[in-house]
């Protein structure tokens, strides 16, 4: 089963940009990604540029509105994602808990909907 990890953290949480702690955390992220790749569970994963770089579009009644910033101002912002392929939710949760951001932010674990799946797929 494939799951997405949505990595959330408050903008003021976590190590300061450019600090030695930030560099150390970067190493942790590399190691984390590598371990998942070696375990054969990693499908994809990327950090996202901070929300200052975001642009949001909506189309209502044929009118496109383009706005600077994320879709909503939230305390915790989306910082990155992973996609993993694991046997069940427990396996996904175990990997999610190891993400460095779990210590000061949150990792939302969401199952990916496979459009080809028949209804009422077996539970694990």
């Amino acid at each position, binding site marked *: 089963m494939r799951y997405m990890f949505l990595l959330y953290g408050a903008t003021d949480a976590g190590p300061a940009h450019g600090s030695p702690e930030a560099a150390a955390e970067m190493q942790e992220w590399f190691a984390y990604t590598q371990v998942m790749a070696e375990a054969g569970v990693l499908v994809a994963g990327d950090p996202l540029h901070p929300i200052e770089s975001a642009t949001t579009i909506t189309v209502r009644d044929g009118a496109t509105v383009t706005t600077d910033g994320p879709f909503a101002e939230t305390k915790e912002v989306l910082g990155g994602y992973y996609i993993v392929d694991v046997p*069940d939710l*427990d396996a996904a949760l175990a990997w999610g808990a190891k993400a460095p951001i779990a210590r000061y932010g949150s990792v939302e674990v969401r199952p990916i909907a496979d459009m080809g799946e028949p209804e*009422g797929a077996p539970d694990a």
Partner: protein
Amino acid sequence: MRVSRVAQVFAAEWPVLVATLRRDLGDLDLAEEAAQDAFVEAAARWGPGTTPNRPGAWLLTTARRRAIDRLRREQRFAQRLPALLDAADAAGRGPRPAGDLVDDQLALIFGCCHPALDPQSRVALTLREVCGLSTGQIAASFLVPSPTLGKRLVRAKAKIRTAGVPFAVPARDQLPARCAEVLRVIYLIFTEGHTSTDGPALVRGDLCDEARWLASLLAGLLSQLPAVDGVAGTPTHERAVALAETLGLQALMLLTDARRSTRIDQGGRLVLLEEQDRTRWDRGLIAQGQAVLTRALALGHVGAYQLEATIAALHATAASWASTDWVAISQLYEQLLLLESSDVVALNAAVATSMIDGPAAGLAAIESVRERGTLEDYRYLHAARADLLRRLGDLDRAAAAYRRAIELTGNEAERRFLSDRLASLGSATPNGGAESRR
């Protein structure tokens, strides 16, 4: 009360049947429906003299047949066929090994109580899939409309399917934590039965019965898990911890439930532990509780439930409120606070303090708990304060505290008790003479 043979078999066989079918079919909903169908058929067919020798096997065969019928009707046959063929094949080889039955039932219990599900859903699922209560019965027990309960179950099963919530015995290192989640669910059910949060009755005994039965079932299953460590017969540390905590909770519930019949008087009013008729406490349940507690303590891991059970045992064996071993109870509360810094526990510890060092000391202890701010909406905080203020003759503050407690309780029996206490203040002499009518 004579229980029909079908009803007796039902209670014992339901979780085994649901658990086995769930494993066979890989679908909780289908398993539940098939089991329900089989029991309906059993109720119609069985009677005195026509109850099968091996009811479990009869039920399983019948349930599988009904599951196949259902799948064929809903045209989901192709998807499930491999699993069903495997199951039929295995059935042909004889009854399922006992170890599998243990694993299957544990998988069912741990799955229903998975932390990925919200607490209310865990309670509803456990009562439905493990205890076999109907949606209507569960709804009535928790005073919610039946359709609401039904939707809750549907949503929970949907989450299980889409998120892949596993139904399996947890990995060894996860066992204590996951077991703690199950015990939380069981204790929630018991607490709701012991002092219902809403409504006219104080006690819903059927919920207490289900909770005690669940703990007993879980303890039995855990103790049948094979030993993994090299030394034969030595349970793994994790299994010992899980079992010790389960037995601790079971003991706590037995000892608490022993007081069930004395908690309400004829007028439907709450009767405090202090005033309960101890001759009517169930000595059989007390003895059972003590025996289970001894087994728990022998496993060498002392957790919160065991400490609370020991406190309950001290109350249960004391001849009176006054002659209770308050010093021992106070020490146990101190140990409990080291394990979990709970403000509710601190409140109970303060009450014990008041019995040793007098109401003023108890009140001071309660005030320091109150300063932490978490219990402002907890009715027992205000009821305890009111009681101590009353003993100290501070009737105005006692009245205010009783009023606050009354505001916070949804339970009719408690409300009546607190109102009576409030009224009795009015007939007391103010300024130091605490002569309230009892």
